[in-house]
């Protein structure tokens, strides 16, 4: 491989990695605070994709409709998340872990079938929106602007989330609730509201990723299972509940997949799992997680 091909793989790996980061960061924030492993998180992402397709195709006559979809799609998934937290999850926090797996797995099936009912089983595409639809040259390689745009989105969201966690009152409250919900509750913090808010934030992130992905991929049933597995690999590599961990894990997985495809195409699918197994053996709390 020459240097140009390597750079090409790096950029492509990073752009996919950044979309995965958006999804994984939501999964990780929800797990860190609510201690809920939301198996249906990938389905929320998929719904974001369908919403992007639905909005851009239904209102195609409106100029810059993609950008409107980028605002509305994540808001819609956040609201859906709010309903799920208030009406379903709230009933099972006190129960055994098994119940949350059954409940969130049930949501995968129900929400997936609903998507099938509404949008059918076909593949849908969304065209790359102006002004990020061109190509640009980086290190002599011609490269789609949209991929660079995705990388910028991922980095911007990462910095934004870190800033919120570190410097705002909301971030302090989330960190306190994450450490000990009972103590936070006894200090007068409205913990149920924080739970709803954090779950909505996680679903907003999944919806954002879901809306950003269609222009460089397809909208279809089944994409939820593909990304949720990648997200599990990412949070295991990076450390459960750690935002920086999810960021680094996503970059590593993105790059491993990109180079895997060009070097050993037949084994691509194995690389992510191998990486996860190695991390689990040598540092099972993840690169940036905290040992229990």
């Amino acid at each position, binding site marked *: 491989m020459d240097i140009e091909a390597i750079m090409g793989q790096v950029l492509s790996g990073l752009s996919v990695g950044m979309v995965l980061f958006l999804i994984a960061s939501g999964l990780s924030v929800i797990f860190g605070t609510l201690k809920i492993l939301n198996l249906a998180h990938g389905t929320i992402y998929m719904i974001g994709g369908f919403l992007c397709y639905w909005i851009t195709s239904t209102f195609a006559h409106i100029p810059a409709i993609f950008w409107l979809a980028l605002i509305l799609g994540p808001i819609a998934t956040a609201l859906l998340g709010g309903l799920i937290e208030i009406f379903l999850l709230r009933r099972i926090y006190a129960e055994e872990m098994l119940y949350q797996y059954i409940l969130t797995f049930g949501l995968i099936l129900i929400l997936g079938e609903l998507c099938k009912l509404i949008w059918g089983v076909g593949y849908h595409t969304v065209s790359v929106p102006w002004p990020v639809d061109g190509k640009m040259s980086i290190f002599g390689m011609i490269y789609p602007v949209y991929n660079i745009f995705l990388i910028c989105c991922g980095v911007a969201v990462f910095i934004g989330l870190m800033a919120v966690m570190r410097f705002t009152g909301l971030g*302090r409250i989330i*960190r*306190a609730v994450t*450490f000990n919900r009972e103590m936070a509750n*006894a200090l*007068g913090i409205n913990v*149920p509201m924080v739970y709803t808010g954090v779950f909505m934030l996680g679903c907003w992130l999944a919806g954002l990723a879901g809306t950003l992905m269609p222009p460089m991929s397809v909208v279809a049933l089944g994409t939820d299972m593909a990304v949720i597995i990648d997200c599990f690999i990412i949070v295991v590599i990076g450390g459960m509940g750690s935002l920086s961990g999810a960021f680094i894990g996503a970059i590593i997985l993105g790059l491993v997949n990109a180079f895997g495809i060009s070097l050993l195409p037949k084994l691509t699918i194995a690389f992510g799992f191998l990486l996860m197994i190695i991390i689990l053996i040598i540092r099972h709390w993840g690169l940036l997680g905290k040992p229990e």
Partner: protein
Amino acid sequence: MLLELTEIHTFYGLSHILFGVSLEVAQGETVCLLGRNGVGKTTTLRSIMGLTPPRSGSINIFGKDIKDKQPFEIARMGVGLVPEDRLIFPDLTVGENLEIAMKEKNNVRGWTFEKIYKLFSVLKERNRQLGGTLSGGEQQMLAIARTLMGNPRLLLLDEPSAGLSPIMVQAVEDHIHLLKKEGMTILLTEQNSHSALKVSDRAYILEKGRVVWQGKASVLKKNPVIMKNYLGV
């Protein structure tokens, strides 16, 4: 009565912990709950705070029944709990730990940062340090200070002297005396009855989830037989 527990029965899952505990605390009083490990002292405080609500019986605070109220609502009524394991937020600074417990901006009425730092001078020096890096004694001071930032009218202290050096135990006692002078109503639990009786007006002794003795702290201090029977000291 500022706090009134009537025949409360509290469970952890299937295990029955409190068997009809009744107790009262009047405005401005300091009352201690004594008893060996595992008799239900912490559970009594958790029941009052709403963390493990009793299955039967009633709890009245400031004349209101707290049934079905969440802990944060009880906290906002003016109840503050300092748990035995302190539970300082380790990746928040000392200042942030205090700030997060404030229920209104700047605490114009009641406990301000200045007032807290005057009472707990060690916290002022460590203002920007992470909570997790404090020593045990400092964490206990921060835990009390943090709860005070919520301007409680009723303070629940769970084993405030547990695991502290004799010097820190003395410091905690001094702070409780100061709070008493401020007119704070305090309910505290202790295995260290010696320390607790020094600061308390009245005492309850719990055994196996039941109140087995109640009366003036001064009476208990002079009655080694009761102390020996129930507390083993």
